[in-house]
């Protein structure tokens, strides 16, 4: 108890932030979110359909969860800033998951545009959570600009490769003045646990749950993994050794 994640002055009991895209259907999405225990759910901001009414996600999610809009797909600071402002108007939240994509194939961030957008949005009063590279320098610059957290990628978005560079993630966690949320690349529960063990304050994931064979069961597994990883981090892992160190007493061995 008492181990809450604080972002932008808001306390969260769950360290798992979850996306709302790609589920087999809406009911599975809702059940998976419940099973995950997440309080924060990400959404995108997109053009409405002009050909007829479609139920808005706000209608089904907004009263139960803190919706975190993203700027996914934006390729320039200008588009990301406008999307953030539209999101604030749409959802009446200052929180924004800032994504500025530099390459449509790999979905790696455009750091130059990301920093520009982050600076503008922080000045405009947003609680900025930037999706960024697993680069300690970029993360430090984002924190210095006033971002409420940094969200380095574990691996490319949707790849499920896990944490490709755990040493860099650990270094970012050690140095960061703001919470580090591992964003993107999680494939299964052990990846999420590792992120927390390395010192991440939380994980944000979508595809690993939405595209699992059983999304609701995977959501429960992710919840348990995040809690276990956090507990292990707080408990403190033993130092790694190159060779064996017997755990049973060496004295009193028969025949000696």
């Amino acid at each position: 108890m008492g181990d809450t994640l604080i972002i932008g002055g808001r306390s969260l009991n769950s360290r798992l932030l979850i996306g709302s895209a790609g589920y087999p259907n809406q009911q599975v999405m809702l059940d998976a979110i419940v099973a995950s225990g997440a309080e924060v759910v990400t959404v995108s901001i997109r053009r409405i359909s002009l050909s007829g009414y479609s139920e808005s996600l706000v209608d089904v999610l907004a009263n139960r969860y803190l919706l975190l809009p993203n700027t996914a797909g934006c390729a320039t600071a200008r588009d990301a800033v406008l999307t953030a402002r539209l999101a604030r108007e749409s959802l009446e939240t200052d929180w924004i998951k800032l994504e500025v994509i530099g390459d449509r194939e790999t979905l790696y961030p455009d750091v130059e545009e990301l920093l520009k957008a982050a600076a503008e949005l922080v000045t405009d009063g947003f609680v900025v959570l930037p999706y960024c590279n697993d680069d300690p320098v970029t993360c430090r610059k984002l924190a210095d600009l006033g971002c409420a957290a940094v969200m380095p990628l574990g691996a490319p978005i949707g790849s499920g490769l896990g944490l490709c560079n755990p040493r860099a993630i650990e270094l970012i966690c050690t140095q960061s003045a703001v919470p580090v949320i591992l964003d993107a690349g999680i494939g299964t529960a052990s990846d999420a646990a590792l992120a927390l063990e390395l010192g991440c304050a939380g994980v944000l994931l979508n595809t690993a749950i939405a595209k699992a064979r059983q999304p609701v069961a995977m959501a429960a597994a992710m919840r348990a993994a995040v809690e276990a990883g956090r507990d292990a981090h707080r408990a403190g892992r033993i130092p790694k050794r190159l060779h064996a160190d017997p755990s049973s007493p060496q004295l009193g061995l028969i025949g000696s």
Partner: protein
Amino acid sequence: MSMTIRLNGNTETVEANLTVLGLLTRLGIDPQRRGLALAMNGALVPRRTWSEATIAAGADVEIVQPLQGG
């Protein structure tokens, strides 16, 4: 009098001197609908100004709402 605007990436012909509220009504979109937001020429048009904000010929209008996202 009619004019041409860009609406969510498509070219549309609408009557001149249309307000944002008038455009939404014309499109059959309930302006009270939750989650709605609108930008014109790259700038947010706050909901509270929709009844006065007029749309100029050639304006680039984007109407958005939250959808699934990661």
